[in-house]
């Protein structure tokens, strides 16, 4: 919501574009290889991921512009790699605020300061803050210059029927309605997904009690980009408050509502202003501020049993809703899009077996369940569900005033990328390694001279080896071979021996690794990673 007198997209700092529905009606029903329903950050990332693999898509956005509020604001390191792979990372690095530190306070006293893992070996910071409409703007800038993506705004998908070779969508826009056939559909239509509803599917899981108001204010507040959590503050006894800095002097203030607090009253502009004033007083800010936007959310852990329904794949919030404490809603959705994009492209191009698509749910739903486990722990601290958790939470906070160890119980579990250990297309990890990153994990980065390991990766699969002879023995299509020095920092980070090898997928997850690799093992590892299609050198 926005203050009285201002429209939905009447922002203090962001100029919303206006997109018309397609004016040229001639080719609207031409079949599309892929239809993407939803033109938010997840849909656009999927479209760019497909385009990167040379696959054309048609994307439908229901609204005439971007998301009207700032909503998701934390972008995790792993998502920066996704933006890099799809050719969109530059503006993010220019605009977003990177951060590594969090501070927690109890009754005005700091009880915890934590640092997220970071080092000179890392290309990106662990987290960046950026308003969602900028995220959409930067992705859109890449989408609109890509000839393989056709975006149709103000276009609502009203039906999705299976056909022998795909899915037939019925689309409605201000000029009329039409049908379009697609071989596959990606449902990126958000938490209230209409596609999900049309297919008779339901999210399952738990709703938590805690409700939070999120308010963005603009103010010249002098504080570094450090996430602050206030437990049981004077201004809202019993509540938890989160404060994040965003670009353009925008500050995100999340405050928890009390159990009996009326939602409609809490959302009144006057109530929001009074609540924000109290929070600002608590943190010692007494300068000018302007209210930009506010909304409300509750903490849920809900997911589909299967992210695939025939030729429809659910990506992002349409497949799962997670509490925001761990900043995984957006980041998880981006990883969904990145995961399905290369798989769909490779299957459609005959470069991988059909079964590759069956790895999408175990990998990405597995990631969601991992998020649930962590988020449940965070939620128990932020909004204790029962008296027992409340008693222990209060004891930990009170003890933390004199004993810092107890403050670590207040450490939020931030996003760590999920390891696809149980995936049907990941080779069981080689137990001969005594460290490094296991099969299924995201490839760690490392400095190599002035560049990073990730800068050396190929467009498709990459094979990292430490032996020239092994490198010469490998000649597989779509596999870039990178030879590193055994004494390098990267070798150390990967715990690699002289004959070790890491096979890295297009989405930067490790498909397999061998402490003592052979060309035969590598070849069969690649076959496994692309679901059984033997790849031969086209020469």
């Amino acid at each position, binding site marked *: 919501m926005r203050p009285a007198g201002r429209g939905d997209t009447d922002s203090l700092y962001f100029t919303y574009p206006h997109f018309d529905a397609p004016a040229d009606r001639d080719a609207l029903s031409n079949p599309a290889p892929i239809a993407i329903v939803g033109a938010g950050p997840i849909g656009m990332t999927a479209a760019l991921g497909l385009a990167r693999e040379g696959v054309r898509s048609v994307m439908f956005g229901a609204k005439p512009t971007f998301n009207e509020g700032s909503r998701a604001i934390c972008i995790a390191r792993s998502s920066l790699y996704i933006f890099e792979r799809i050719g969109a990372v530059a503006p993010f690095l220019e605009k977003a605020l990177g951060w590594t530190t969090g501070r927690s306070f109890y009754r005005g006293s700091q009880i915890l300061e934590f640092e997220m893992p970071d080092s000179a070996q890392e290309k990106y910071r662990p987290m960046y803050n950026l308003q969602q409409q900028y995220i959409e703007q930067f992705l859109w800038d890449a989408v609109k210059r890509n000839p393989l993506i056709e975006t149709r705004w103000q276009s609502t998908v009203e039906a999705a029927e299976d056909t022998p070779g795909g899915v037939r969508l019925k689309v409605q826009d201000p000029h009329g309605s039409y049908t379009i056939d697609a071989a596959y559909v990606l449902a990126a239509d958000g938490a209230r997904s209409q596609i999900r509803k049309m297919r008779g599917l339901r999210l399952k899981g738990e709703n938590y009690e805690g409700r939070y108001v999120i308010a963005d204010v603009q103010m010249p507040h002098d504080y570094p980009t450090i996430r602050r959590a206030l437990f*049981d503050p004077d201004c809202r006894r019993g509540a938890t408050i989160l404060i994040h800095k965003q670009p353009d002097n925008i500050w995100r203030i999340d405050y928890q509502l009390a159990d009996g607090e009326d939602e409609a009253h809490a959302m009144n502009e006057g109530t929001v202003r009074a609540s924000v004033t109290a929070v600002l007083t608590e943190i010692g800010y007494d300068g000018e501020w302007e209210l930009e936007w506010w909304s409300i959310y509750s903490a849920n852990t809900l997911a589909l049993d299967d992210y695939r329904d025939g030729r429809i794949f659910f990506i992002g919030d349409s497949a799962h809703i997670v509490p925001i404490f761990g900043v995984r809603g957006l980041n998880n959705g981006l990883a969904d899009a990145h995961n399905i994009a290369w798989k769909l492209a490779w299957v459609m191009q005959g470069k991988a077996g059909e079964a590759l698509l069956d790895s999408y749910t175990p990998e990405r739903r597995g990631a969601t369940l991992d998020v649930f486990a962590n988020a449940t722990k965070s939620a128990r601290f932020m909004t204790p569900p029962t008296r027992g958790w409340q*008693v222990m939470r*209060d004891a930990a906070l009170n003890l933390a005033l004199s004993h810092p160890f107890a403050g670590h119980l207040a450490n939020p579990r931030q996003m760590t990328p999920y390891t696809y250990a149980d995936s049907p297309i990941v080779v069981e990890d080689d137990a001969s390694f005594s460290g490094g990153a296991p099969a299924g994990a995201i490839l760690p980065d490392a400095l190599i001279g002035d560049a990073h390991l990730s800068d050396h990766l190929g467009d498709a699969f990459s094979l990292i080896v430490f032996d020239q002879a092994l490198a010469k023995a490998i000649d597989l299509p779509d596999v870039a071979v990178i030879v590193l020095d055994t004494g390098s920092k990267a070798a150390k980070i990967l715990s690699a021996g002289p004959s070790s090898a890491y096979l890295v997928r297009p989405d930067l997850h490790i498909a397999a690794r061998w402490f003592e690799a052979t060309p035969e093992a590598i070849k069969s590892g690649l076959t496994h990673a692309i679901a059984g299609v033997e790849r031969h050198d086209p020469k």
Partner: protein
Amino acid sequence: MTPSDLERVYGALAEHIDAVGPAKSELFLSKLALLTAREIGDARRVLTLLDEARLNIDAAD
């Protein structure tokens, strides 16, 4: 004790407090304190811990 060990104990305490209910949780925690004291096996150390637990107790008002 690692942070995750501490977290496990924290969670188990929360669940036990819920299981015994509000009327009995003080009894439960006091029994636990005596058991823990006996495990520590050092009365002076336990008495110091009691004083430490008293610190800032009014901050929760």
